[in-house]
């Protein structure tokens, strides 16, 4: 297996912490993604490390018994420590507030606290075996205020900090899940709302064993902006399923939870789940490999649920060398390979893998480059890549690759890829346009929901494709020109199909290629059907081609005329061709002859060395002067002295027009 084959990797810079051992307890807080290393109950120090902060927080606290749970509130304002099953202790980390600990006992009698979650910097939820209690912490008063509570039997709980949803397992089979959602309107006390409960269907089990839903088989994660409950349904010998599967329940903000997707694993054994870049990653410990699923890719829909298969063949996470730090790096000791898929690994959502025994916290990452070669179907590859965060350069390289001599794709494939790119591009342009219109209409103040559309990396516009793909492609000498033109036309066709205005430089590229291969008649036909849209630069380009292809002159003039904003250019073109009279007639036809420069026309007329033409032009301007100013003479500002002299020299003084007097 070559290195280019691994599509999953552990992040390069893991969070490192002191290994778990009898005197050092390690805790992980999913909300802040912090690792707590608590030595001797805190007496000899607590070290808190997060993924972003390179400066760990360290402090000491009195050893008041075994720590069961320890978490900072959001923004590290208040520390909560659970040491008993009835109480939680608090300590302020806000400057100027007392650092003396204070304690809160759960309200429900005889209840045991299973755990707690911070839902904001000052709000906390206690989960007990008899329900949940939602408190506001008042740090300056060193006390808590109960906001709301709810009673029900709880087996276990799960918290998804991103969506602020707590899931409680109830009933004997543990498979009825009750979600609660926490909302935090700014500057107000949070609210707690109960969402409809739902039941997870348990696989049929032999009668001897009591079926139940294990906490280990449930995960919550946000995928494509929607909250899902992921249930790992193990293979049951009684059913005829071919292996374990992951069932995705969609948990909407409003309405009931619905079973939406089933990910077929086709294997059995121990699994762990992660969600990375909206992909569901399923690790399989027995084979030490992982597979990924993308619920946006087309699957088999049976009327209610969509079945998905792994996007790619199973692969191990890329082998990882434990970096050597400290004095060991000085000695020439080689880096130690890390044991992957170790049984000591603990996986957290969305993308965290912790090895408590080794003292590492990694973020799992998806590498896109290897996938390019693992997914031969280019259309599916594009569908996949376009949904990824860091996709731009990979997509561009796929485009370049499919146009390369060795890996050349067929035109229908190329067309599909272009269509997919432009579909994304058009979606963004539309969003951008409706935003602009809404802003113009003044809705921005009234509607806070109005947000400027985010340009993701999946938006590849014409300049991206031009710069990174097409401009290099057309330069390739070995490429048959027929293919080059077909590809350019396919891209232009795709843009047109999505009603995206084609940029001038793409047209220029087409023209350049056609001209290089003397395919003028082809160019002529394209222009005839307005495939290459009218523009001034294009018209000028055509003019420059006249010496190679005379009809280009006509094409250019037609284009300038259609543009209707290019009258000056038309005059210039005609003058440059010494068609002075035609230029004058044209400008008179559009009513612009009172503003033109007499000098320019007289210059052009003189250059023709046709005296009668010069006479005609000269007379025209004399008449214009007469009409506009009541005198046929030129004003000094017109700088026509030289032409007046020339006129006199050829036709004599008496030929000059006399001012008409009344």
């Amino acid at each position, binding site marked *: 297996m070559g290195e280019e084959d691994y599509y999953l990797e552990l992040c390069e810079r893991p969070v490192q912490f002191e290994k778990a051992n009898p005197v050092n307890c390690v805790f992980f807080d999913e909300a802040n993604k912090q690792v707590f290393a608590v030595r001797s109950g805190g007496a000899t120090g607590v070290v808190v490390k997060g993924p972003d902060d390179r400066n760990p927080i360290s402090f000491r606290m009195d050893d008041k018994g075994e720590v069961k749970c320890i978490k900072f509130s959001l923004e590290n304002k208040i520390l909560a420590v659970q040491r008993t099953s009835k109480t939680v202790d608090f300590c302020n980390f806000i400057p100027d507030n007392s650092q003396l600990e204070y304690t809160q006992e759960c309200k429900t009698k005889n209840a045991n606290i299973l755990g707690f979650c911070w839902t904001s910097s000052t709000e906390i939820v206690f989960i007990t075996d008899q329900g949940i209690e939602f408190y506001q912490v008042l740090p300056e008063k060193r006390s808590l205020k109960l906001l709301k509570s709810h009673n029900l039997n709880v087996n276990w709980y799960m918290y998804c900090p991103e969506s602020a949803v707590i899931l409680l397992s109830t009933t004997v089979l543990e498979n009825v899940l009750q979600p609660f959602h926490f909302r935090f309107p700014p500057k107000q006390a949070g609210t707690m709302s109960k969402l409809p409960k739902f039941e997870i269907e348990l696989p049929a089990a032999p009668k001897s064993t009591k079926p139940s839903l294990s906490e280990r088989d449930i995960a919550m994660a946000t995928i494509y902006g929607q909250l899902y409950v992921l249930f790992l349904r193990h293979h049951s010998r009684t059913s005829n399923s071919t292996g374990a599967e992951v069932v995705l329940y969609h948990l909407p903000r409003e309405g009931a939870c619905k079973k939406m997707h089933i990910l077929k694993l086709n294997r059995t054994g121990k699994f762990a789940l992660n969600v990375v870049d909206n992909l569901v990653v399923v690790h399989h410990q027995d084979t030490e490999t992982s597979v990924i699923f993308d619920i946006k890719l087309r699957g088999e829909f049976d009327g209610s649920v969509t079945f998905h298969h792994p996007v790619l063949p199973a692969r191990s996470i890329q082998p990882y060398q434990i970096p050597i730090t400290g004095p060991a790096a000085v000695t020439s000791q080689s880096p130690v390979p890390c044991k992957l898929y170790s049984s000591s690994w603990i996986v957290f959502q969305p993308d965290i893998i912790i090895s408590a025994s080794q003292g590492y916290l990694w973020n799992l990452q998806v590498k896109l480059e290897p996938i390019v070669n693992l997914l031969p179907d280019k259309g599916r590859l594009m569908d996949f890549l376009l949904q990824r965060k860091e996709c731009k350069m990979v997509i561009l390289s796929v485009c370049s690759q499919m146009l390369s001599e060795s890996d050349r794709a067929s*035109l229908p494939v190329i067309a599909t890829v272009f269509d997919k790119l432009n579909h994304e591009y058009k979606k963004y342009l539309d969003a951008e346009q409706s935003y602009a219109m809404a802003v113009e209409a003044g809705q921005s103040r009234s509607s806070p929901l109005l947000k400027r559309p985010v340009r993701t990396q999946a938006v590849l516009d014409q300049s991206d494709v031009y710069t990174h793909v097409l401009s290099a492609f057309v330069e390739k000498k070995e490429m048959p020109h027929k293919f080059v033109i077909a590809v350019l*036309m396919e891209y232009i*066709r795709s843009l047109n*199909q999505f009603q995206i205005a084609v940029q001038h430089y793409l047209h220029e590229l087409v023209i350049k290629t056609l001209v290089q291969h003397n395919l003028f*008649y082809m160019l002529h*036909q394209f222009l005839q*059907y307005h*495939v290459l849209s009218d523009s001034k630069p294009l018209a000028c380009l055509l003019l420059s081609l006249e010496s190679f292809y005379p009809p280009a002159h006509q094409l250019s003039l037609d284009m300038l005329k259609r543009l209707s904003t290019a009258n000056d250019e038309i005059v210039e073109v005609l003058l440059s061709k010494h068609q002075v009279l035609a230029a004058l007639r044209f400008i008179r036809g559009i009513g612009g002859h009172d503003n033109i420069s007499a000098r320019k026309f007289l210059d052009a007329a003189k250059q023709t060395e046709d005296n009668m033409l010069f006479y005609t032009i000269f007379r025209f301007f004399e008449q214009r002067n007469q009409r506009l100013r009541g005198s046929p003479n030129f004003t000094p500002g017109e700088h026509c002295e030289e032409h007046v002299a020339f006129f006199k020299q050829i036709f004599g003084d008496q030929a000059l027009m006399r001012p008409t007097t009344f």
Partner: protein
Amino acid sequence: MAAAAAGAGSGPWAAQEKQFPPALLSFFIYNPRFGPREGQEENKILFYHPNEVEKNEKIRNVGLCEAIVQFTRTFSPSKPAKSLHTQKNRQFFNEPEENFWMVMVVRNPIIEKQSKDGKPVIEYQEEELLDKVYSSVLRQCYSMYKLFNGTFLKAMEDGGVKLLKERLEKFFHRYLQTLHLQSCDLLDIFGGISFFPLDKMTYLKIQSFINRMEESLNIVKYTAFLYNDQLIWSGLEQDDMRILYKYLTTSLFPRHIEPELAGRDSPIRAEMPGNLQHYGRFLTGPLNLNDPDAKCRFPKIFVNTDDTYEELHLIVYKAMSAAVCFMIDGGSEKEPQFKFIYFNHMNLAEKSTVHMRKTPSVSLTSVHPDLMKILGDINSDFTRVDEDEEIIVKAMSDYWVVGKKSDRRELYVILNQKNANLIEVNEEVKKLCATQFNNIFFLD
């Protein structure tokens, strides 16, 4: 006189007036170089219509044209005479290829009047015909011939005067019958192409279709796409498309429209090839796609004759109003890029693709005499030694000559390959041996 005739048309005598449109009197093609001496004049004539005309009259008419052209050339060396006006007819001259002259004689329109004594009076309308129109018709005759047969010169190269005469006879015999001289007008001068108006998106989709089709069928070299007899796309260059368009719209399409208009059960319709459930069918090309042994009938066309001289097969497919012309490489029938002479001393077997005809009097070879001399030199070398050997000679321009002697067999190959090197030439000869002499043991 024309005005008088027009006036008479509405007069009381109108009923007794008969009008005859212009008609083709004769049409001939000659080359003065082919019979420069007296007594050989007949050799100049390559084609003459009507063929029934007596030989001496043919010779006279050709001679007259030659004389007129020659005579007028003294006044205008660069622009020789284009037409000759006489009372009864007009003659049009065209020299499409050097020294090849085409002449078309058109009779002026006639009005036959009844004189007072009851005798018919014939009036020739001398000024009715437009020179430019009929000169264009004549030029078009050549273009049409060239489209299907290539240039005159090419026919000469391929098989001499005999072949050229055959081709001319075969083509013009039929083509002249389709000239409707009475209905020629300004449009024949233009020889224009009518384009189908189309929105950009549909046009791009047609482009895309053509590109994809040409990619997946790489034998298709050019494609033209028409709708309602109007052009949408031409991969051919303008001049070639112009004449092809003329052929399609005035000959091929009209010929096939009748069965199409006929009802499904009509007997004409029954002869139509292809699947009746489907509206698409090949106008030229395979009669039945499902039968691989079915006859394929499609014309050969010659394009870019000034330049690359391509020989193509024209396959036309029509579905409803849309027609696609696939022009596929005629390369399969192309002359091989090599020629060879083979001789086996053991059984005296001899084979030559160098010689076209060998009679006691003439030996016509298709290669340059210099090359033949090189072959002879190699042969002398071979006779001098007994061992097997191989000699490779780089001859003039792009030619390579290879002599191979192997166990009393001799093979001489003339290759025409641009920019080839020794290794490539050697490879080519090996390939040739593999294809042409695969049942013979050649020592390497």
